[in-house]
């Protein structure tokens, strides 16, 4: 607009035009540089994460040998006799995630197949916002729900179940990640071309046969990467386990017992006030690094699954 307003009816001299063009080009370049810098912030974030985790963990590992970190079966950093073995926290993380996956994958897949292959469009449009809302509920609210509603219900079914346990936390965590699994798996299934389904129907296949024998194999890469994303969410999930799984490191894979996860340990330390630079402070970065490596591994695996099993139509 500005060029129109400033344009006068007197013809500009050539030198003026050139000067204006040069100014305009400079402005364009400055703006492009600014936009590029904004895009660069995301790279800086990653650099920052890696730098913080690695540098603080480095101090931690100068005190605690990496071998005992990986093999010691006790995690008691706040005791006088301090042990720094990640295994109990790792067991807690894996057990809760496993419970969550056992809940989320069957339910999420069934919902995805139902919405993509069975439900009428009206039902789909009505239900999808609900699933989105389920995915948008803050995790602290899920934690409250696990502690106040789900664990008391489980205690009715399983007598002697402690008030904090990995089973209740894991089940609720599974419900919390259903929307991620179902929406990504559904996207993958809906991307399968209609002509493939029509081929199956023309051969007399029912909806269920078509879904299981045609659509799922064709969408397998997308479905598997939805599962992997779900697992990665479960591994990093914090507040549900911090509230409902108990805060005691416990080297067990028995979901009926209370235990602490890697993420819950970080929260526990952050709630107290450990002095900056102490070994306890550094231990949460070592814990965070382990967590980060696990989710990174899963994300990379998801990437390769998408590539490896992608079928192009």
């Amino acid at each position: 607009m500005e060029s129109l307003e400033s344009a006068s009816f007197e013809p500009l001299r050539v030198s003026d035009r050139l000067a204006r063009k040069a100014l305009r080009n400079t402005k364009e370049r400055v703006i492009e540089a600014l936009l590029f810098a904004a895009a660069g912030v995301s790279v800086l974030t990653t650099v920052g994460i890696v730098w913080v985790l690695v540098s603080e963990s480095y101090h931690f590992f100068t005190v605690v040998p990496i071998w005992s970190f990986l093999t010691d079966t006790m995690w008691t950093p706040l005791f006088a006799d301090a042990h720094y073995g990640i295994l109990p926290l790792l067991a807690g993380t894996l057990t809760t995630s496993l419970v969550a996956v056992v809940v989320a994958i069957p339910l999420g897949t069934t919902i995805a197949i139902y919405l993509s292959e069975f439900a009428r469009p009206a039902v789909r449009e009505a239900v999808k916002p609900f699933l989105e809302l389920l995915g948008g509920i803050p995790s602290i609210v899920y934690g409250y729900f696990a502690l106040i509603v789900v664990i008391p219900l489980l205690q009715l079914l399983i007598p002697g179940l402690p008030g904090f346990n990995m089973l209740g936390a894991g089940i609720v965590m599974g419900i919390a990640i259903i929307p991620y699994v179902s929406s990504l798996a559904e996207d993958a299934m809906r991307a399968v071309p209609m002509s493939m389904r029509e081929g199956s129907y023309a051969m007399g296949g029912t909806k269920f046969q078509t879904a299981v024998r045609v659509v799922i194999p064709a969408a397998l890469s997308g479905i598997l990467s939805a599962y992997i994303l779900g697992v990665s969410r479960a591994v990093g999930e914090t507040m549900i386990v911090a509230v409902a799984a108990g805060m005691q490191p416990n080297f067990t894979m028995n979901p009926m017992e209370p235990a602490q996860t890697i993420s819950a340990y970080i929260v526990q330390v952050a709630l107290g006030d450990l002095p900056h630079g102490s070994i306890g402070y550094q231990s949460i970065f070592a814990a965070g690094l382990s967590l980060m490596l696990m989710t990174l591994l899963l994300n990379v695996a998801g990437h390769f699954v998408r590539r490896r099993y992608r079928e192009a139509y």
Partner: protein
Amino acid sequence: MIPADLSGIQRIIRRNKRRDLIFAIFGFIALLIGVLTFLALFLQMAFAGWERLTPEFFTSFPSRRAGQAGILSAWVGSVLVMLVTAVSAVPLGVAAGVYLEEYATRSLVTDLIEINVTNLAGVPSIVYGLLALGVFVYAFGLGQSILSAGLTLGLLILPVVIVATREAIRSIPQHIREGAYALGATRWQVTRDHIVPYSMPGILTGVIIGMSRAIGETAPVITIGALTFIAFLPESPIGPEFPWLNFEWLKSGFTVMPIQMFNWTSRPEEAFQQNAAAAGFVLVLMTLAMNAISIWIRYHLRKDIKW
């Protein structure tokens, strides 16, 4: 294997149809589990917290006595932190999205940025808390303040804003750009006058979804050291004299809604659980309202756009 007579074939057809029906029922039940969980969670908090949802609950500070405790410092803290989050994440995210869609040519650098944005979306939120603890709180010396928390959540939702911006821009047909370029517009003029305004509904949807995620985030905010018991308000952002703005609140200690709820949930007394239910109800209402707005924008503002 294949029966030659008609009744055999009919039997197979009946069996297959029965399986179809059984799966449809299973699918419907699975869906119900999801929907009913949502309703159960919402109604349980509404009933358990109903008595506490009085006007005083919103105007009182937390207290040792559950009956007098309120969420004043928590909701004010949440609003202020969200303000910092929006002011930091929206311009950065939109600018980055615009760069990647309108300016970047395919190169190693842009590939790197793209892979990076995808990966950041998969980083657990607590890791962002550790980043903020190391960088914002200690390296930059911002302390355990509203500013630190807002910037942390800003970084957390940055990938959401970037992805939403890119998708919105991608849906603008090429002839819009060509028309503007044909009239001699520069790239920035095309971006400012056409691309950004036309992709506004999509960008807004993404921003609101990101904000509704940020308002419920607990772990990263605890990690940077937000306090769980705050009985004061930050200084008002509106100052008494020119220029009527005051930035002291940025450095203030704070608490937010989900942390207040966490604090009450982790106490054994029944009365505090009631407070937790009431706080959770308010928190879920906030995220529901934000989601409802974004759904409304998606259906109504986008409907009017016809290329």
